[in-house]
């Protein structure tokens, strides 16, 4: 009993004198876990988990914007694609996994599709993870045009024999107040649904993390912001590793799962 209460005292004193930073950077792993409802009805991938488990060569290409390029956390090596790569390498040591990050800040879906042929498909990817929609929402680009562009991109990637995962926008209170994401979130939901492509619902997942208090998206000083960004990308990388490898995980239906995007 005595050591335990002493422990409390030590912690309390440490917190009081600022030795222990707020728990943002030091979250327990389960705190960036993703509830089942964000995965339940997303169709699982087939080739990618098999190739990973079979110890084959797996090339994953990440397409997206600034939030995939990772500068907020300090650079490419801290972005979610790099985190995804290291988690997959740990879990599937026999597979030769390579995650190529082709994200470019402020890139629209149209610009991304223009790079598909030469830069993406030339790498013979097993899987393309396509993060998109932010620039379109910020600029107010025609939603139908956006949907058409992404549809054409999906068709092209699939025709080349690669699998696709779509990823939607980031969430924060500040961005949500001033940017009209809704139509673009719906468009991505429809694209995923009708093409039987899994959608990684980053927007809803980040909203969940913000709601449960596991990510302080309102951090104010620069260092802390960098920590939050690194933590966020790490969480997303881990969640994505679960997301792309869940092969035949039992499907437990929960109704009402899609109102959160």
């Amino acid at each position: 009993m005595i050591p335990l209460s002493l422990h409390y005292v030590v912690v309390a004193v440490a917190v009081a004198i600022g030795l222990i930073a707020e728990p943002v950077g030091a979250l327990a792993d389960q705190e960036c876990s993703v509830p089942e409802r964000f995965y339940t009805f997303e169709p699982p991938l087939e080739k990618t988990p098999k190739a990973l488990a079979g110890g084959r060569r797996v090339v994953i290409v990440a397409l997206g914007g600034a939030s995939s390029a990772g500068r907020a956390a300090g650079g490419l090596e801290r972005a979610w694609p790099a985190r995804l790569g290291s988690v997959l390498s740990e879990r599937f040591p026999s597979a030769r996994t390579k995650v190529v990050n082709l994200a470019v800040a402020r890139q629209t879906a149209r610009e991304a599709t223009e790079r598909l042929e030469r830069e993406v498909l030339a790498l013979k990817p097993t899987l393309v993870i396509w993060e998109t929609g932010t620039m379109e929402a910020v600029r107010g680009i025609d939603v139908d045009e956006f949907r058409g562009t992404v549809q054409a991109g999906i068709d092209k990637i699939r025709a080349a024999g690669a699998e696709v995962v779509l990823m939607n926008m980031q969430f924060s209170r500040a961005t949500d107040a001033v940017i009209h994401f809704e139509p673009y979130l719906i468009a991505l939901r429809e694209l995923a649904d009708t093409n039987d492509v899994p959608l990684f619902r980053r927007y809803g997942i980040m909203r969940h993390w913000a709601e449960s208090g596991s990510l302080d998206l309102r951090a104010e000083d620069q260092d802390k912001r960098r920590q939050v960004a690194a933590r966020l990308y790490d969480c997303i990388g881990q969640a994505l590793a679960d997301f792309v490898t869940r092969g035949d995980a039992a499907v437990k239906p929960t109704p009402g799962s899609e109102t959160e995007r």
Partner: protein
Amino acid sequence: MTAAASRTLSMERDLRLDFFRGLALFCIFIDHLPNNVLAEFTLQSLMFSDAAEVFILISGYAAGMVYGRVLERQGFVVAGVRIYQRVWQLYVAHVFLFMIYMAMVAYTVDALNNALYAEEFGAANFLDQPGLALVNALLLQFQPAFMDILPLYIGLLAVLPLVLAGFRFSALTMLIISFTLWLMVQLDSRIALPTYPGPDGVWYFNPLAWQALFLFGAWLGWRNIHGGVSWLSYRWLFWLAAGLSLAGFLIRFNWTLHGFYDPIPVPISSKLLWPFLSKTDLGLLRFVNVLAAALLISWLIRPRARFLSSPAAWPFLICGRNSLYIFCLGILLSIVGHLVLNEFFGGIAMQFAVSVAGIAIMIAVAALLEWLGAAQDASGGSALGAPTASRGARG
């Protein structure tokens, strides 16, 4: 307008217009709250069209009827001035909303400037050149979140005097021009109005497409003061409208159910219908579905059906009757509700509470406007100044 005349006017009033416009206003508010489960139960989950189409169609109808009558009795100038009085009120509301938007951006710009939101920060970038943003907002070229509906309504009302004059000259010519323009937009979606700051940004509601719905509504309303449209009562048309509405309901509601519970099969994929479902360009199915539903309703519910004068219908009626104010209020409440839901989250209970609170405020303000209007009528209309003049003509 004298109290007696006002009473006669309200006796003639088609309560269905008020009721369904009130319903549309509630739906627009609920649809605008983020992550709102209740939005799965509004018009948009039952038909291809949503509350926006219903609102624009009824607004067109009411405007065509009310201002058409003014045009006949008092001439083009009076009708034009009355319409522009409305346009001015909407414009002022738009500028007011823009102020709120600016305040939100100014308040959140620090959070947005977080490197985490490098791209999203683009939305706040206009603060670098606030003068330019201001001018573009005044010119309706700057339409950030929630500021996309009023510019459409302003644009449609602004051309109404010419449209009504055109109806007098040749209604058929006007309708042909209007539908041709709509059709051109369907065939080439690049026919659109650009927005600031661009590049490639377009009006979320393309006025070149949406004018067709408003104008068609205005024509029906205008025809109504000249004895109505005879072919609307053809029985085959009723069955056609019923069939189309039912088909729209079955397909759309199936998607809604699928959204709730993924394993429910979808016989008709939405992908097949995408080319006809554009909201920006008022796609064919949205256009047809709202017209079919309107015709069906006008057959099934009489203008003074008993339920329309029941207490349950009263909140809808008063909101629909004061639609201009309640419409603007609804947008403002959406913004507030958005902030509340993103600040406190709180799940379904909170979404429900915010939805109910917002609607209660809309009803309370509408009731206040009704009471004010009645007080003005009773005092002969002069005591409280100019707004009385337009009371009978709430388009």
